[in-house]
């Protein structure tokens, strides 16, 4: 069947590893083996290899909690801690909880209040049966992408000295909603003075002009880890059934309305970048052909990204309009083809 071939092609293109539907026996990832974890802590295999941890596995629950918390902060950065364990070269994040601090980028350490909260929360959790330790921290960058700023890098370096194993996760809730997919990144910093052997190709992301310097200065001091997600068999089952109820929300969601000002911000940022690129082009007539061309190419990619998101949003709106509004229209004119025409004509 055509659709089967199409699906296979799509899966191949995207390296989709079909995770076998977890059955109850494979929920072993949820088991916390205290002895094994303690032994791992003693061994400290990461002390010798700065690139030791390569993968992160995030549970469905942790992801949901982090994204909801990040989104609830609106345009304010929020932060929280993640609990989990390690497994060879992977860090497993089982749960996350929010911290009552307002993350302004000028603060390196959480205040004493937050420390108290952390200790209290960990204690109550242990009593309630969640035995994992704190294994990382997460915070949000609403609207400006998943990367570590200068403050974040110094915080993480400190953490990696005293609280190993530790992981930094950044979530962008605004881009998540606008793009329709989760924007998340997991990072670990290199120790001071360490030069990574090769430059890993990281996925390109648009950074607003006012943050681009901060990004550029520090982007070589940390590396990104691969993120995969897992869920329990019960989660799988429940999520499948959940679809029966909230397909309504999928249809009724309208990303255009929610993210209007974000898109406007993106476009004005793009305009500024264009001006900068233009100035650069004007100044370097005989000079090297490198930078201005690359700048313009980047701007083109950014504008393409904004457009694609807008078009997706508009597509949903048009589909909904055709579905629910064209009742009278279709009965009136049988020969009128539905499409852009009804929109432009009155």
């Amino acid at each position, binding site marked *: 069947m055509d659709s089967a071939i199409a699906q296979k092609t799509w899966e191949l293109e995207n390296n989709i590893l079909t995770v076998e539907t977890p059955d109850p026996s494979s929920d072993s990832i949820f088991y916390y083996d205290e002895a094994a974890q303690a032994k791992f802590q003693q061994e400290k295999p990461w002390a010798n290899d700065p690139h030791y941890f390569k993968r992160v596995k995030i549970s469905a629950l942790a*992801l949901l909690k982090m994204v909801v918390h990040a*989104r609830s902060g609106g345009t304010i950065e929020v932060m929280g801690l993640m609990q989990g364990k390690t497994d060879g070269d992977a860090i497993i994040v089982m749960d996350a909880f*929010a911290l009552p601090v307002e993350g302004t980028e000028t603060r390196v350490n959480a205040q004493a209040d937050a420390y108290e909260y952390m200790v209290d929360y960990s204690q109550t959790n242990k009593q309630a049966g969640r035995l994992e330790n704190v294994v990382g921290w997460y915070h949000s960058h609403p609207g400006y992408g998943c990367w570590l700023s200068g403050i974040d890098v110094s915080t993480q370096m400190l953490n990696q000295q005293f609280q190993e194993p530790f992981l930094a996760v950044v979530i962008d809730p605004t881009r998540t909603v606008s793009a329709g997919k*989760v924007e998340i990144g997991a990072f670990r910093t290199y120790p001071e003075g360490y030069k990574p052997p090769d430059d890993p190709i990281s996925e390109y992301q648009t950074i607003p002009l006012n943050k681009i310097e901060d990004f550029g200065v520090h982007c070589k001091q940390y590396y990104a880890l691969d993120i995969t997600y897992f869920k329990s068999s019960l*989660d799988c089952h429940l999520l499948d059934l959940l679809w029966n*109820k909230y397909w309504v929300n999928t249809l009724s969601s309208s990303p255009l309305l929610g993210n209007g000002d974000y898109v406007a911000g993106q476009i004005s940022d793009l305009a500024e970048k264009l001006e900068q690129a233009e100035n650069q082009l004007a100044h370097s007539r005989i000079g090297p052909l490198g930078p201005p061309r690359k700048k313009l190419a980047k701007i083109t990619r950014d*504008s393409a990204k*904004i457009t694609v998101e807008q078009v997706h949003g*508009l597509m949903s709106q048009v589909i909904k309009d055709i579905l629910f509004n064209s009742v009278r229209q279709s009965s009136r004119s049988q020969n009128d083809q539905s499409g852009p025409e009804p929109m432009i004509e009155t």
Partner: protein
Amino acid sequence: MASSSSSGLTFKLHPLVIVNISDHYTRVKSQLNPPPLTSTSATVNGVENQQQAPRVYGCVIGVQRGRTVEIFNSFELLYDPSTHSLDRPFLKKKQELYKKVFPHFYILGWYSTGSDAQESDMHIHRALMDINESPLYVLLNPAINPTQKDLPVTIYESELHVIDGIPQLIFVRSSYTIETVEAERISVDHVAHLKPSDGGSAATQLAAHLTGIHSAIKMLNSRIRVLHHYLVGMQKGDIPCENSLLRQVSSLLRRLPAIESEKFQDDFLMEYNDTLLITYLAMFTNCSSTMNELVDKFNTAYDRHSRRGGRTAFI
């Protein structure tokens, strides 16, 4: 003991709560049944696994606005079923912690896992009544039944009924809807279908987006088909006429077309034109960038300042 509730409250449940409860249950279950270390002990543990299905307890928190109760989050409780004692200091501590981070949320009730509400649950219910005078009881059935179509989550309220002359509190079932914010929906979707998380090409993004909408429309279609089938049956006389249902269907039909005002059309057109404008600008940027590259390449190929001078082609 379950009949339909008459309190008139509407309940909205967030998917986060469901995933929370499921995670709590899976955690406790896997700690009780450690994974078999060798394959030979697997069969022995397999038999035991069937019997160890622990009940977990916890609190649900959220917001109540007027008659709408929205359940946002949940956390665990320590409860000893043998002595019927609720760990009060623990509850207080947890409440404080959650108040700091989510100042708007109140304790709305409690949850538990199991297949049906039991008599002993009334004890916890009464215990929570001093925090919230009418708590909810959310019950999740963790048994995985592949033929099940409905979400195994039920919400119970307590009502005072006079049975055998003695006023007693019994549980009554209430209906609920699933409510979600955009970010929650995207992450649930992401985890449920394991969509490609990185950029991919524009084509795959488009495919993913359209697939989502397509599945939703397919659901809508199948539901309408069911209704249609039912109505045809009623018309033929196979099924007894039910007037309340007919009224609901008729009111639903009368709501179409959804919006048909001048203002809506204007706004919609404006949005449409805005998107077209953005596409136009992006196209423009793309063209100028390509043009720029072309000019650069031309300059490299026909370099005027080369030693040979003039218009020799670059070989």
